[in-house]
């Protein structure tokens, strides 16, 4: 979760107003801002040397719209889909457990891929509840703790606990992250990139998978509710979270993580301004671009660690990586496909059109380069295309660093 800092020098939003300075560069920026928010500038008539307050107000309004779009139509939208899909995955596994057929394995595997996709689409916002509540490591730790799984499946008392009504709670309390989440279920359902034959999955494995899927679902309910607010999720989700006594607010206070951002600058919010919130938003993007390039692709590609391969049983690695970059795209363009709106892109475009073009190109390039890696990644991680994809993701992280600078300058 490291963020490449674009500069050793402070960002303006990071420091006090003492260091807010207005140069000819700044003047150019004011002009550009007018291109973006012209209707809000009826008083913006002087040369502006003495107009820092106006500039800040306008920028804050701009960023407020970006944050609103981000919270409601990117984050909450993605997490709602994730939570809904994990219900489907859980139900599919329950059905499979009740009637073990090849078709039901395939159906569950498809649900896993769908839920997985929404998780990867959320990885540009792994701060907040995903981090504070440890949900990211809880549901997405790899590699699988295989030796422990063998021991658990051989422990009849534990299998009995997993098989009970509260199996989801039991696994959350007693299994380590290496046995929870997506990759445990993946191991049960997939082999060599394909859904397993039903005959190759034991009843005990399904008991484990159902319990872990229940816990996965609960964790995703928490993600959605932590951003949307407990009263904005369905009764099913709310009742589950209340029964499990899962907190969904910042530091146990009154604000959900969404409200914390939407109330930036007001008492009670941890965000001092919408500009401050936008810095966090863009850093979430930089972090995952860096993670995909340097770690998810880079570790196996460079030979640093050939075991460091995400989703190795389903051969879903490339989809995972693309999902991560699309996650960045959604954050940068605002909302999700079909629900676009105010965006960081529009702001960056208004202050530095060339940079915006470069960022969009870097996003598209990263996706294209990942898609060009021969399938499956688990067997082609040393390919030249993997190296190119790694470089493309690193380039994306770097150019997003420029975007962060543009936000705070």
């Amino acid at each position, binding site marked *: *979760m*490291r*963020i*490449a*800092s674009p500069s*050793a*020098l*402070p*960002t303006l*939003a*990071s*420091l*006090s*107003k*003492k*260091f807010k*300075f207005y*140069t*000819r*560069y*700044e*003047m*150019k920026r*004011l*002009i550009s801002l*007018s*291109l*973006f928010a012209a*209707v809000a500038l009826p008083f913006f008539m002087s040369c502006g040397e003495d107009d820092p307050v106006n500039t800040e107000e306008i920028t804050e309004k701009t960023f407020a*719209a970006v944050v609103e779009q981000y919270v409601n139509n990117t984050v909450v939208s993605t997490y709602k889909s994730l939570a809904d899909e994990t219900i489907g995955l859980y139900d599919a596994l329950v059905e499979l457990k009740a009637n073990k057929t090849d078709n039901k394995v395939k159906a569950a595997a498809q649900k896993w891929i769908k839920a997985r996709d929404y998780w990867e689409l959320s990885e540009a916002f792994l*701060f*907040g*509840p995903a*981090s*504070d*509540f*440890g949900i990211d*490591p809880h549901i997405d*730790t790899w*590699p*699988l*703790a295989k*030796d*422990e799984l063998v021991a658990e499946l051989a422990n009849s008392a534990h299998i009995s606990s997993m098989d009970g009504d509260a199996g989801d709670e039991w696994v959350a309390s007693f299994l*380590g*992250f*290496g046995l929870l989440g997506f990759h445990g279920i993946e191991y049960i359902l997939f082999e060599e990139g394909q859904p397993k034959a039903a005959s190759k999955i034991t009843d005990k494995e399904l008991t484990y998978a159902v319990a872990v899927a229940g816990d996965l679902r609960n964790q995703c309910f928490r993600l959605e509710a932590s951003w949307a607010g407990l009263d904005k999720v369905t009764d099913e989700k709310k009742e589950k979270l209340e029964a499990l006594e899962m907190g969904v607010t*910042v*530091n146990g206070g009154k604000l959900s993580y969404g409200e914390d951002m939407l109330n930036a600058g007001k008492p009670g919010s*941890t*965000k001092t301004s919408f500009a*401050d919130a936008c*810095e966090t938003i863009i*850093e979430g993007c930089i972090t995952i671009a860096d993670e995909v390039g340097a770690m998810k692709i880079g*570790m196996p590609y460079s030979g*640093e*660690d050939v075991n*460091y391969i995400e989703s190795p049983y389903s051969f879903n690695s490339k989809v995972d990586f693309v999902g991560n970059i699309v996650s960045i795209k959604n954050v940068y363009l605002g909302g999700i496909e079909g629900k676009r709106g*105010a965006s960081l892109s529009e702001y960056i475009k208004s202050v530095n059109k060339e940079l915006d073009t470069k960022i969009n190109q870097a996003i598209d390039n990263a996706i294209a380069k990942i898609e060009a890696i021969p399938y499956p990644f688990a067997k082609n991680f040393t390919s030249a295309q993997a190296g190119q994809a790694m470089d493309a993701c690193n380039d994306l992280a770097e150019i997003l660093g420029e975007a962060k600078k543009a936000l705070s*300058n």
Partner: protein
Amino acid sequence: MGKKIPDLFIIVTLFFCFAFAACSKDDDDEELVEIEPDEEYFAGGKLGTAFNTTAFAYEQPTPVVEQSPGLMLQFKYGEALFEHEFTSNTEGVRHGLGPVSVRSSCITCHPGYGHGKRMERYRAKDFGNSYLLVVTDENDNYISQLTGMPQTQAVAPYLPPIDESGIYIEWKNHTDEYGNTFPDGEVYSLIYPEVTIERSAFNVPMPDFYKVRLEATIGIYGTGLIDAIPDDSILAQYNLEKSKGFTLNDVKYQPANFIKEADGTAHPGRFTYGLTRGTLQNGPGANAIWNITNVTRSDRKYHYITTAYATAMSKNVEIQNKLGKSEQEIYDDLMSKNLLAEMNDKDYIDFMVWHRGLAVPAARNLDKPDVKRGKTIFYDAGCTSCHRPSWTTGTDDYTGDPMVKGKLPRYPLQKIWPYSDFLQHRLEMKNDIRTGWCRTTPLWGRGLSERCTGASDHLHDMRARNYTEAILWHGGDAKFAKERFRSLPKEDREALIKFLESI
């Protein structure tokens, strides 16, 4: 926002472009004149400060790391070792957890790279539970049957030394000598933990008397800068405070008691509440990556367990049967001093590059009037007697471990602002820390805790839920400063907190 812009937009835009044309005749000159902040903003000095106030503020590399592509890559690899789970697998990524462990990942105790969170129960798997159990006898000595940091996790068929279902944390209300009331009438509340462990929860023989305390993890960012402070400066601080009549833990400063390192050097303690570590290279992190997980490495080819535990496990017939080994074989396995290294040296060095490469968040808002006011109060009230604001690092020819010598980032001759004297004092709290001696906690960066970790608890067992409570728990040698704080008008108390949040 940009998709349905009417023609009016273009008209207005053009208008503004013309209106500003006269002001921007030097369009080609885009030079941004950057004004460097005052030195106090550089909490970790020029080489050790990250200007980042977001949720990622504690995770940043120092400029020294950033400027070296090689160190940067090592930093990322080392970071992955900190952030991700170790498993009991016998090969592959992050293998080797156990046979017993305190936690299975570093970040569980350091959520968001911070101090952890106040917890209502002790469960090793609860994310953010940064507590270590401190189990001692009536003289505050560790119980020898347990490791200093007792484990509650085990890889089957082994049993953990302590079954955590038998651990209880009760938060009790505390009323101080002022009736929990400021002179101006404002009321506050204080809580503290009472921890008990059922005798039946121990899987090792226990003495008749034992008591339990909690110690939370300490922040990890900036520890490379702390390591770069010369020993002489720490000793000078000791002598200075001694000359002023402070009661200090003198035994720590007798050369015979300095901490001896693998490279033959010896140093006064500066890390941990107990000042048990003298260098970062043999510091809390360098040891924790081994003894919290029990993942062996080339210079730690043995387990962090006690003979009492090895004896208890080896005599357990059920374990003998499950392992298919004799009592002697099990005992020898557990107590071996020549185990295979589960973490290779390269990974360990990457981990230490990351550890020594973590930057300190820059200070914020120091020029705001209320923060300035708070700073004045902080100094006037005597807080700086122990929370020493700044230090200057030495040449930073760091020592402690030959394996990492010459491979880690360095921070020579930096003025840094940790706000600690790195000495121990006694705060005389109810259910106090073991021995009563507690190193002054650095205050740098703590104001970002809530946004980085989702929590903002303070003190060694997280009993303080905010800065005010933390100050009000100060007794003993720091009582005079607390009393000055208590006597302040409300707006001045708030200004002081603003200052603390800003450094």
